[in-house]
């Protein structure tokens, strides 16, 4: 971003904050975390009634930096800047937006990179595995600290959508609405299979050293890169890849070797490499497990409708036609369960080409749906 050229609908320069919790956190796994930090950002102003707060739950590789810029030199804004800001779909003139980084991640909240107070070394692979339930519990603690009793809306895409579902089950009185976007009520067998290949890519990297690699200069970069390359393929649609790269060659002709010949090869390698620079392998392993474990229906005899029974929020479920990672059918499972449980729910499948990543894209119809729903909510809250 260059100074003076900042778009008027941008939240501008933002600074992450840290909330510290000194109490012990009992995790779903049975482990305990003795104190933890959550890094988060906020945009807009909390109103007097404290009724205009929106929680944004991030997906697998997302973090708290959702909108705006950290420095004037930043090339890119936060990961959902196209939707959040003054006069944008999620309008920060009207709403107070809170976006935490979940524990177990590697962007500042307590996770494998954090020093274990007992050993004074980074937790690394000893960081306890966490679940969506644990995350939502910590988000509720953050809400307490911010003085937010009830969220006007909780919004999440992909793994973020799973957190929306969990919120509505675990804390039904603490949210009025939730937008569950490009999500699924649990991973399919195929989803878990993809995650397992990603994990094996990392764990079989010769630098992985069972997760104890922080002390050395050699990190399991190749493994993490492969994991990301695989993941990236599943986030895009066949059509999107074909449209963007086709069978285009880097040098215009075949070279009969194993260097990147097709454009898609060099693109994937680039994506993998740049991910390695910003992500930690132990965190990635842990996050894929969070995804695998989520299955609220399993605690309700396999019935998602029964699992959703406590929910009182009004649901808006959004899927994308070209998403095969969490396909529209997976969103429809959520909708069916909500209908079965007699909940307030609306559902729309947005036509898109970009696969699972569509939920991050500024697709006009998608943003129109978000802003229309939020207009209605703002009206109900008496916010103009």
């Amino acid at each position: 971003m260059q100074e003076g050229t900042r778009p008027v609908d941008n939240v501008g320069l933002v600074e992450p904050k840290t909330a510290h919790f000194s109490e012990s956190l009992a995790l779903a796994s049975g482990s305990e975390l003795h104190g933890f930090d959550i890094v988060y950002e906020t945009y807009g102003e909390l109103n007097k009634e404290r009724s205009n707060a929106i929680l944004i739950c991030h997906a697998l590789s997302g973090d708290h930096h959702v909108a705006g810029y950290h420095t004037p030199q930043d090339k890119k804004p936060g990961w959902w800047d196209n939707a959040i800001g003054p006069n944008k779909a999620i309008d920060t003139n009207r709403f107070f937006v809170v976006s935490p980084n979940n524990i177990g991640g590697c962007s500042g909240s307590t996770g494998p990179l954090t020093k274990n107070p007992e050993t004074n070394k980074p937790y690394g692979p000893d960081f306890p595995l966490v679940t969506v339930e644990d995350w939502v519990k910590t988000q509720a603690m953050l809400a307490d600290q911010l003085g937010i009793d009830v969220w006007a809306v909780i919004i999440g895409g992909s793994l973020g959508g799973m957190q929306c579902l969990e919120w509505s089950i675990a804390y039904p009185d603490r949210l009025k609405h939730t937008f569950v976007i490009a999500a699924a009520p649990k991973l399919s067998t195929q989803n878990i299979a993809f995650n397992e290949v990603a994990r094996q890519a990392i764990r079989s990297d010769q630098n992985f050293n069972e997760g104890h690699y922080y002390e050395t200069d050699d990190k399991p970069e190749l493994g993490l890169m492969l994991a990301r390359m695989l993941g990236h393929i599943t986030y895009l649609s066949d059509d999107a890849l074909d449209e963007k790269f086709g069978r285009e060659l880097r040098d215009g002709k075949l070279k009969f070797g194993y260097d990147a010949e097709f454009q898609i090869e060099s693109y994937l390698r680039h994506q993998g490499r740049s991910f390695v620079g910003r992500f930690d392998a132990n965190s990635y392993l842990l996050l894929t497990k969070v995804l695998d474990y989520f299955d609220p229906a399993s605690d309700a005899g396999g019935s998602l409708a029964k699992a959703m029974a406590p929910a009182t929020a009004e649901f808006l479920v959004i899927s994308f036609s070209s998403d095969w990672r969490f396909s529209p059918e997976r969103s429809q499972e959520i909708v069916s369960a909500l209908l079965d449980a007699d909940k307030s729910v609306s559902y729309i499948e947005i036509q898109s080409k970009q696969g699972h990543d569509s939920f991050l894209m500024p697709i006009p119809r998608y943003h129109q749906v978000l802003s229309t729903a939020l207009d209605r909510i703002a009206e109900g809250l008496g916010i103009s």
Partner: protein
Amino acid sequence: MSLRTDQSLIAEWVKPGSRVLDLGCGDGTLMAHLQEQQEVKGYGLEIDEENIVQCIHKGVDVIQTDLDKGLSEFKKDTFDYVIMTQTLQAIRYPDKLLKEMTRVGREAIVTFPNMGHWKNRIQLALAGHMPKSKTLPYEWYNTPNIHLCTLTDFENLCGANNIEILDRATVDHEHQSSLGMKLFPNLLGEIAIYRFRQND
């Protein structure tokens, strides 16, 4: 937000506080009216994205659905009424959908353009072309109305499927009713409105 006369008639038939499913709910006008005026609860089903946005705008719970795929999402007798206005004629298997409506709802209400209206009969009989009117504005080749019928056709289908007709009304394209329509509904009624249920 004003209701068409067929919608007003439906609103009169629907008991306050009941649970309603509106198939092909359009921009949600009827559901919004029923919710606000009669404390009705329920959902609209709609396929068109722009209409879905309008429903969300009105605070109507709407589920994007292709009605040709049936109502398998819903269990038996989930609703007091399943309503479908001006959509039956565009459905691929109207007979199956009628059965689905009476399965999911204790009662069902439909409205559809009456092909037996005298103007339609004259256009085909004398002018020799497919009828066009304010109610049926399309050409034969671009019409979404693939299963047009008359009141008699509809009642025959109900009879064959053991569906009991509880109420019947007809209106013209301005959604007005008249004495003539009451006497000769299949000849003078342009839009038919039926309330019915499945007999065991």
